[in-house]
Each structure stands twice: as structure tokens, then as C-alpha cells.
């Protein structure tokens, strides 16, 4: 119920407090409350109920005429060709983006852990002959390539799936009033989730070194135990990177939407002649001013994956090459903290 009240408050926050506006707010609030209570009685969860109520709220621009607040709600478009993005489009984008974020994160997860079965299977100590060892190695390799292919497929697909919304970044768009408020609310609500995901990810990264440390303390670093330590480490790092990617992508999606509006506001302020330069392509929320970094960072994890596989296959030291992952994680955190600029950090 709190979320609904907040939503209504933010929707009406910038409007003048005329009797008509106050009445509209009370009435709409009453309807939302009734609907919410009924949905809860039907057994819907709080989250579901809030989602349904907000999605059936509609659009303030619709009541603007009746309330005499058209000038507040309907900002004059800066140019004729400006496209207005509605709440439905924004909601659809956010939901789709969440699915694709999971897919992309799982894709990278599979890339990272692809060698885990191979490491474990090839490390199994075999005493007599080489038969079973070869068999294990082949099974491990097959699994490795299956996961690589699956992971890459998911990663690529998650990048392509957003194309139906690409007009938002390519064309001159602005969000309508309810869409703006909705995105702002989602963005500030996602913040705590984002922080939790990052913290858990960092903890996993730290834990990933634990097995190796324990084994080396017990002086059993050779052979099978080294491989087990590597496998556990890879799995934990994979899970950590999964969380980083998921958190980054979800927030990135909301940031992109904010950026659409930011650009529209800028264009309106600066006038039509200088709006051209703001029409850049899509960028993530973390923006690198350095030209090379801005090109390299989007392909950071795929590059690390390639590096890891190449080094591992050349040296065949699967027990030690996993060190690339924690190092890469630290380097990534360092680069994005030092050189990255969080554009929409309010």
C-alpha cells in the first residue's frame, strides 16, 4: 500500500494544488486503494497487487484537460518529430530487460564455469592405465564446449533481444509524465537491491580464494586438490559475476530510460540547434570518458573468457589458471570505480 501512495504522491508532486487537482488525487487514490484491497483479498501478493494497480492507473495526461493543468503535464515538445514514450512501453521495456538481464548473466555464468566439469574430471587420480582418464577428459571437454556454446548463445541473444525498443535511443524521444515518474521510482527502489547484489558478489569473490588457501595451508596443493580448489573458485566467481552482471544490466536499463528523458530535457533547454550533439548512441549508466575504455569495457568479460581458455589450453594447468578470474574481477572493479562515471547518481 505504501508503494501505491508513494506512486500517487510523485505523480502529483509537481502539480499545482488547485481544488480540482486535490479532488482528482483523492478520487484516484480511493480507487487504487479499493482495487489494492480487493486484490489482496483475492490472495495476490503485495508486489503483484501493487504492479496491477499501477499498471491499471493510466495516464495523467488524460485527466489534464479536465483539471486545467495541461500546461504542467504536457510539456511542449522541443521539436515536431519528438516521439512520446508511454507508460506501457516503459513497463514493457523494464520487464523485457529483466528477462534479458537474467539470460545475459546466466550466459556469462556458463562461460565462466564451462571448464569446471573438465577440471574436476581430468583431475581424478587414475592409477592403472590411461583409459578412464581419457574417457573423463573427453566427457569434460564435451561438457565444456556445450556450456561455451550455450553461454555464448545466451549472451548474444540477450544483446539482440532489445532491438524492438531501440527507437528509444535512436529517435528523438521523451517519456510521458507517468512514465517519467514510474522510471524514477523504479530506479530509486532498485538501488538497495543493486547494493545487496554487489555486496553478495564481492563476498563470493573473497570466498572463492578460500579452498585454495585452505589446501595450501594443509600443503595439499598438488594434483586433484588443486583442481578442486580451482573448480570451486570458478563456480563462486561465476556466481559473483552473475550477480554483478545482473545488477549492472538491470540498473543500466533503468539508467538508459532516465537518459532518454535527460536528453529530451537538455534538448529543450538548449534549444533545437544544439540538441544534435546529444543524439549519441546507447550507453550504459557507467560511462567511460576514455575512448579506449569505452570501447573495451563492454567486451571485458568475453575477452577474459577467451584469455582464460587460451591460456588454460596452451599450458594445460587448469589447477592454477583460474587465478585469472579473481584478478579480472578486482581489475574490473578498479577500472569502473576509477575511470567510470555514474551519470545518474542522484
Amino acid at each position: 500500500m505504501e508503494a501505491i501512495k508513494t506512486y500517487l504522491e510523485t505523480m502529483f508532486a509537481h502539480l499545482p494544488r488547485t481544488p480540482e487537482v486535490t479532488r482528482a488525487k483523492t478520487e484516484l487514490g480511493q480507487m487504487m486503494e479499493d482495487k489494492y484491497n480487493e486484490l489482496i483479498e483475492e490472495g495476490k501478493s503485495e508486489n503483484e497487487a501493487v504492479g496491477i494497480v499501477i499498471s491499471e492507473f493510466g495516464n495523467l495526461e488524460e485527466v489534464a484537460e479536465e483539471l486545467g493543468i495541461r500546461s504542467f503535464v504536457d510539456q511542449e515538445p522541443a521539436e515536431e518529430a519528438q516521439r512520446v514514450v508511454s507508460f506501457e512501453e516503459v513497463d514493457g521495456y523494464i520487464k523485457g530487460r529483466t528477462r534479458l538481464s537474467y539470460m545475459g548473466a546466466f550466459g556469462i555464468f556458463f562461460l565462466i564455469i564451462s571448464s569446471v566439469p573438465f577440471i574436476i574430471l581430468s583431475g581424478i587420480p587414475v592409477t592403472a592405465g590411461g583409459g578412464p582418464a581419457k574417457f573423463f577428459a573427453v566427457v569434460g571437454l564435451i561438457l565444456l564446449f556445450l556450456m561455451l556454446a550455450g553461454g555464448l548463445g545466451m549472451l548474444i541473444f540477450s544483446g539482440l533481444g532489445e532491438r524492438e525498443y531501440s527507437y528509444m535511443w535512436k529517435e528523438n524521444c521523451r517519456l510521458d509524465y507517468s512514465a517519467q515518474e514510474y522510471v524514477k521510482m523504479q530506479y530509486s527502489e532498485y538501488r538497495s537491491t543493486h547494493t545487496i547484489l554487489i555486496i553478495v558478489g564481492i563476498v563470493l569473490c573473497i570466498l572463492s580464494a578460500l579452498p585454495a588457501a585452505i589446501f595450501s595451508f594443509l600443503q595439499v596443493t598438488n594434483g586433484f586438490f588443486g583442481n578442486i580448489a580451482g573448480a570451486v573458485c570458478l563456480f563462486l566467481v561465476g556466481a559473483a559475476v552473475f550477480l554483478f552482471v545482473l545488477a549492472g544490466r538491470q540498473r543500466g536499463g533503468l539508467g538508459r530510460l532516465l537518459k532518454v528523458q535527460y536528453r529530451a530535457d537538455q534538448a529543450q533547454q538548449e534549444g533545437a540547434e544544439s540538441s544534435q550533439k546529444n543524439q549519441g548512441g546507447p550507453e550504459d549508466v557507467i560511462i567511460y570518458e576514455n575512448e579506449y575504455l569505452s570501447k573495451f569495457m563492454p567486451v571485458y568479460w568475453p575477452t577474459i573468457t577467451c584469455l582464460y581458455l587460451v591460456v588454460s589450453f596452451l599450458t594445460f594447468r587448469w589447477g592454477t589458471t583460474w587465478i585469472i578470474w579473481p584478478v579480472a574481477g578486482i581489475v574490473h572493479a578498479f577500472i569502473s570505480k576509477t575511470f567510470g562515471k555514474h551519470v545518474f547518481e542522484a
Partner: protein
Amino acid sequence: MVSISSDVIRGYNDTIILYLLLDGPSYGYEISKKIKDLSDEKYIIKQTTLYSAFTRMEKNGYIESYSVDAESGKRRTYYRVTESGLDYYREKCNEWNLTKEVIERFIRKEDGE
């Protein structure tokens, strides 16, 4: 999946609301719920759409609003239809019957299966 035409339905939101008020006064949520139920959930009216229809029709004198204290102690706005609202409703019904009849003639019947 076919969905209803928002252009067409927009012209008949008033008619739908007036129909539901024929049986007696009602309030916002109840009306939106009845619309959802009677349309088998094919039409879910947005709250802003409903509210702007209320204010517009009240301005035109088709409906009147009054406050009632609900059991929970909250005030709730009820709407009832006026005489001129009834006239307007009949007019819209006739309009729809004519519209439907005309459009029907241009819809090809696909029953040759």
C-alpha cells in the same frame, strides 16, 4: 491475440458508465470492476480514463456526485445519473446501433470452413 480497438471504445466509455449507473448510484472502483466483469476481462478501464469521464460528464450535467461515509469511516464519492444523462445515454445507444449496422455490412463473414 485480438484486443479491442481503443479508438472505438473511447467514444463509448460514457455509454458504458451510464449503463452501469442506470441501476443505481455507484462509485469509482465498483464501476471499473463491473466493466471488467461484464466484459469478461476483455476491457479493463484505466483509472485516469474513468476519472476523466466522471469529471467530463459531471461538467456536462449527465451525472451528479455526492459523498457518502463508508463503513470504514472514509468518505467515498458516489455518482448518479441525471435526466439529461438518461437522454444522452439513449442517444448514444441509437448512435451505436446505427454504427454497428453500417460497419457490419463491411465485415466479411468467414464461415466457409
